[in-house]
């Protein structure tokens, strides 16, 4: 049987912004698709399958948005499917597309996603919409917000491991600094740790600058078998081949309070550990700290990046904070994390987020990132994406092959 290794043919990403007043969600996705097709060097008419990635009918003000998007990029009457998994939507979409290609259901597929989480509603309404994606009967109606759930998780991490606000402030500084070297990033900023510590409290211990962004934006990626890519992409030989090497998915209970003690308890993302275990097994990774060159982690809040580093096995529990202070995860560090700026700096239009993470890894592995954020000799990259407080967790791994 011919190899069914899945390759990343190309990707495209729009400018992320707090308000893309010039574009509806369909405009944004179309814009990303045009960029992806150009980057991939393919005629979209030859791509066999579509996959729509978006989270929320509330934010996008359109149900079955996939029908519109698929239609607007000229993919009808070819097959289409929509994938939704909260914050993990984009990564889960890529994982699903991986399975479609791997199984032989199709040889090529375009995954396109977007969201208008920006200023089309007030911030209080946005918090309300996201709260609807927690347990609406039990936690939303007592004043719960995602910032508060994550804050309670981090407070427990601080109690168990001595993690400090100053340590997770480092993440907020780093990711917004990295965003300065990414032209599509929403919030490039040159900050100090004290700026973060002195920003207004939102849900303590998280302050304004610890929180990720509400964004308008879209991203698209074309996956295929290598044979398909070689036959249909005019640019296939221009760049090193990037393979979609492995994928893993883990889950956890919707309510934090229903999780067993002591593990995961309130402080840990059990689903991330499970997703990573599967992905590492598939990719043959034994020591992720040395075998991964660059990672895009789901920094919905600054402290979550530290928790993710620990669950993904980059270090032991309780050690990520001091490693972050030591610059291990900075550009130029041992294992650069969120070179794109992450959710804190690049932005997070939900349906596009996981795809945007994969595009950053693609650019890093090709050596095409802005030189100021390019990781030298990056050969293997990881994305970590989750929904809720870890209800859906997806780890995808990409490799440069040459």
């Amino acid at each position: 049987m011919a190899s069914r290794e899945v390759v990343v043919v190309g990707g495209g990403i729009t400018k992320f912004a707090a308000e893309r007043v010039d574009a509806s969600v369909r405009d944004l996705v179309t814009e990303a698709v045009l960029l992806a097709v150009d980057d991939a060097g393919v005629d979209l008419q030859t791509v066999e399958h579509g996959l729509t990635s978006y989270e929320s009918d509330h934010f996008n003000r359109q149900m079955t948005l996939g029908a519109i998007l698929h239609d607007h990029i000229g993919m009808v009457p070819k097959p289409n499917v929509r994938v939704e998994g909260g914050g993990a939507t984009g990564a889960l979409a890529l994982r699903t597309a991986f399975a479609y290609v791997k199984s032989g259901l199709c040889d090529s597929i375009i995954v396109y996603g977007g969201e208008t989480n920006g200023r089309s509603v007030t911030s209080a309404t946005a918090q309300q919409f996201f709260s609807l994606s927690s347990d609406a009967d039990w936690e939303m109606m007592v004043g719960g917000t995602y910032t508060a759930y994550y804050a309670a998780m981090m407070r427990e991490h601080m109690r168990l491991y001595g993690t400090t606000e100053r340590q997770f402030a480092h993440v907020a500084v780093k990711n917004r600094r990295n965003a300065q070297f990414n032209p599509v990033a929403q919030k490039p900023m040159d900050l100090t740790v004290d700026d973060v510590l002195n920003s207004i409290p939102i849900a303590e211990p998280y302050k304004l600058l610890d929180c990720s962004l509400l964004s308008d934006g879209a991203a698209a990626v074309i996956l295929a078998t290598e044979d398909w890519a070689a036959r249909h992409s005019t640019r296939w030989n221009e760049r090193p081949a990037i393979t979609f090497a492995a994928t893993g998915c883990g889950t956890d209970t919707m309510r934090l309070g229903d999780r067993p003690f002591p593990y995961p308890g309130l402080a840990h993302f059990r689903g991330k550990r499970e997703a990573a275990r599967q992905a590492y097994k598939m990719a043959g990774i034994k020591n992720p700290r040395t075998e991964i060159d660059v990672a895009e982690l789901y920094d919905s809040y600054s402290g979550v990046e530290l928790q993710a580093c620990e669950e993904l096995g980059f270090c032991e529990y309780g050690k990520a904070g001091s490693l972050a202070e030591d610059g291990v995860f900075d550009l130029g560090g041992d294992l650069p994390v969120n070179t794109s700026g992450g959710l804190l700096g690049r932005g997070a239009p939900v349906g596009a987020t996981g795809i945007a993470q994969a595009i950053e890894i693609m650019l890093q592995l090709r050596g095409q990132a802005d030189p100021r954020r390019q990781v030298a000799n990056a050969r293997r990259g990881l994305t970590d994406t989750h929904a809720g407080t870890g209800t859906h967790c997806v780890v995808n791994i990409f490799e440069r092959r040459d």
Partner: protein
Amino acid sequence: MATVTGKLKHLPAPDPLGPNPDPWADFREIEVLGLEWTQHYKHSLGKYSRFFLELENRRFFATRCPKCQKVWTPPRPVCPDDLTITGWVELSGRGQVVSFSVLHYAPAMLSFLKTPYVLAYVKMEGADTLFAHLLQNFGDLSQIRHGMPVRVVYNNGPVDHPIMLMAFEPADS
């Protein structure tokens, strides 16, 4: 149910990526509308209902799995560990704070909450899971801590949602 409130803005939008030749130059004249939406639902509390009805009687209920004896609060009609139908048990309403957050902003549907307010995860006496609710009358914010004893307090309403018939307060240990 839905209203279009008319034109909010009519503006020229710049190319978000700046000085490059703009492929969308023909499409930079933008109109933005206001939309209002309200919905009314009949929202059944289903098999959770007794929990909420007992709050009116100032009693705090959980469910216990007859197979593994695990006590779930909030209640679960089916124990997910055993896929077994549970039954109701009454708890003392006392517990200890495991973790919490101090919120300075409330989501739109709960704009009546006075800020800052405290969301606490509480290990209830006799339960195996944590219950999340508001911690009221906490006095000094710096006194809230892991292990702090709390108790359920009830009110007579009226409230928008029956979950608000209760909250937590600090208790003597």
